[in-house]
């Protein structure tokens, strides 16, 4: 038993450490500094090991702390009129019930289980039980300081605070035993990451029971949760026998981990992404094109990917029209809200950078382009001739700009309309700047995504996403848009800044693409 625990630890540790080293290797600049024999380097290994052990300790307590601070006590503060101890125990009991089937460990398909039992053929029963009891113990130890700290603060007696972790463990054990019994009866494997609709319904219902009644002044008297909690201790102990005598751990795990094979193997995962993308191709045989050359290729591509390109942009536009209409109706019904809305439209333009970012189809377009078109055509040398690459870039840019411009015009026009309806502005130029800058944002994202796709072409021949820089640029784009959400600025200033930025960016991007794309637009190897 001791040996199994040690092996599973060192296994988990090894892949955690290698995971840390692998992510270090993904950072473009750091990549050059790190040796090729990275996984052999002692110093780094020790560093990663320390991080990994620290994580094991921290994770035992941090999660529980956050859980108490937010879900149990944080929300509990809202119910001031009720006895503190009763609210605390009421919420904790219901959340523990939810946790007992949402956070089981036993039915959580994790990588370490896959490595140990499926790949390395460790004894399934022993491995599962040792790790399961370890996780229960870790959970109980993690709970202890906080049941005492928060429990006593809420007026729960110390003896009960001390027993609470055991009660929680007992409830988890009981649920696990019931699930195993159910498996034997019906042969139904439970997977906590793939909950059925019914289970989700139960969770919603239980959350309601936890938080709604206290809001109306009703809470279980403290003795009730205490009684139920205490009953979990003998139940849990009885369940241990059930768990240890259960024989079919291998079968249960085999079923549980079946879906993991595809996620584990990066080639298989890439294959899956590829298949998903192939499904996006319309099989409508009436689609044809009367154009020639690259226009022919492009037209067929756009028509056969209508579902992910035009249809979704149309849907977004309809939603925008609906929202704008709703705001206009709102203004009509509640005229007193006009100044506030006028103020918002006048100063919240930076916020729309994020909205334009969120509705942009650029990444979908480039992904489909790669998966269903460039992935294959880039293996043909005729396709890689510089003049052809640039010609196609122009056509594609035009196409994605058109697709993104529709919702942009709707939003820009709608905002101008709202501005007008809420009392307008002294400077009529504001309307123009508003519409043009929203359009510019949309153009910017169109150019941006296509440019980084052409300059950093991040996929390899196996359709795996390899480019670290590409990922960083995407993340930075998100961060920048998110940061702009916090900014408030008058339309005129921000709008003009946006337009100027967009123009400058387009020029720079075009120059870069013309200079570099013939060299960079290649399959990664």
């Amino acid at each position: 038993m001791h040996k199994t625990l040690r092996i599973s630890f060192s296994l988990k540790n090894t892949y955690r450490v290698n995971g840390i080293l692998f992510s270090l290797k993904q950072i473009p600049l750091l990549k050059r500094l790190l040796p090729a024999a990275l996984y052999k380097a002692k110093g780094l290994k020790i560093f990663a090991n320390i991080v990994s052990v620290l994580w094991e300790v921290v994770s035992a307590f941090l999660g529980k702390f956050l859980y108490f601070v937010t879900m149990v006590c944080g929300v509990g503060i809202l119910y001031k009129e009720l006895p503190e101890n009763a609210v605390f125990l009421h919420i904790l009991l219901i959340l523990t019930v939810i946790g007992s089937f949402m956070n089981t460990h036993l039915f959580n398909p994790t990588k370490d289980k896959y490595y140990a039992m499926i790949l390395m053929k460790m004894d399934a029963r022993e491995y599962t039980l040792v790790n399961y009891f370890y996780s229960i113990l870790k959970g109980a130890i993690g709970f202890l300081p906080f049941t005492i700290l928060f429990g006593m603060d809420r007026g729960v007696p110390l003896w009960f605070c001390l027993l609470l972790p055991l009660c929680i463990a007992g409830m988890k054990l009981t649920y696990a035993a019931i699930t195993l019994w159910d498996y034997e009866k019906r042969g139904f494997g439970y997977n906590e990451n793939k909950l059925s609709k019914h289970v989700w319904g139960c969770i919603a219902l239980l959350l309601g029971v936890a938080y709604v009644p206290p809001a109306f002044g009703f809470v279980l008297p403290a003795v009730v949760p205490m009684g139920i909690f205490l009953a979990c201790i003998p139940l849990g102990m009885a369940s241990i026998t059930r768990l240890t005598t259960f024989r079919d751990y291998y079968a249960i795990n085999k079923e549980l981990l079946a879906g993991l094979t595809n996620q584990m193997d990066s080639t298989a995962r890439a294959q899956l992404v590829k298949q998903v993308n192939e499904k996006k191709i319309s099989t409508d045989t009436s689609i044809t094109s009367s154009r020639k050359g690259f226009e022919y290729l492009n037209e067929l591509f756009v028509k056969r990917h209508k579902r992910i390109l035009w249809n979704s942009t149309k849907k977004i536009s309809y939603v925008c029209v609906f929202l704008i209409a709703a705001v206009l109706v709102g203004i009509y019904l509640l005229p007193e809200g006009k100044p506030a809305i006028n103020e918002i439209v006048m100063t919240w333009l930076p916020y729309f950078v994020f909205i334009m970012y969120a509705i942009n189809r650029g990444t979908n377009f480039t992904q489909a382009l790669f998966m269903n078109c460039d992935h294959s055509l880039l293996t043909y040398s005729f396709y890689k001739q510089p003049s052809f690459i640039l010609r196609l870039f122009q056509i594609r840019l035009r196409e994605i700009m058109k697709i993104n411009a529709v919702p942009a015009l709707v939003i820009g026009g709608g905002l101008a309309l709202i501005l007008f309806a809420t009392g307008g502005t002294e400077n009529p130029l504001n309307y123009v700047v508003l519409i043009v800058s929203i359009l510019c944002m949309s153009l910017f994202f169109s150019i941006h995504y296509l440019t980084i796709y052409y300059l950093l072409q991040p996929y390899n021949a196996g359709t795996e996403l390899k480019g670290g820089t590409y990922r960083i640029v995407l993340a930075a784009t998100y961060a920048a848009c998110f940061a702009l959400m916090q900014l408030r600025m008058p339309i005129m200033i921000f709008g003009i800044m946006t337009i100027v930025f967009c123009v400058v960016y387009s020029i720079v991007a075009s120059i870069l693409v013309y200079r570099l794309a013939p060299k960079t637009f290649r399959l990664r190897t």
Partner: protein
Amino acid sequence: MKFVIEHLSKSFEKKQVLRDINFTFEEGKIYGLLGRNGAGKTTLFNCLNRDLKVNNGNFYIEDESGVRREVVANDIGYVLSTPTVPEFLTGREFLKFFMDINEKSIQNPKSIDAYFDSMSIDPEDRDKLLKDYSHGMKNKMQMLINIIAQPNILLLDEPLTSLDVVVAEEMKQLLRSLKRDRITIFSTHILDLALDLCDEIVLLHHGELEVVEKTDLDSKEFKDRIIAALREEENA
């Protein structure tokens, strides 16, 4: 026409895969490129196709009068072991697109159906989306695209692996019929296939290319020599 590689080298970080490739390939021959797993055959092809940047060295085409010129994209046809075709097009559309954009460089173009006929692709398959083609048919399609433009150099990276015997035989016949006026370099792990199809056997080991002379050996002795040469790597 000759295809000359001089002092070509390529390394990944510290690992030197191609050390010093020097070789002259001659027109009209099929070269069988043999090497052990990881010897760098695909790397060599990727370098020649300019998918990878070389660290050093050069390669060019030399015509009969000895004039050298740079290799351009149109000179090379590269057929991969896993065929890749644009899934959203039909076979006919792919061919039309290819012929459209290469109309200047394709000499004596035939009709699309004539090309399909030459590859024995059935009429009912010609207007199906390529994503629904079988492996063998995708392979034929890829080969067809690569030979229509009549490239001077045809690189084939294990193209016959995983084809059924009938298609493989058709492909072999096709390659034999195509070898005139061009240089065909054929990488494979199957020794018998190389001996059956190729005019010259070239080994890639220690990051260098070297030809195995057949001279007056019978095929058994020739095989043994190739294996011995490749095995020697272990002891080196």
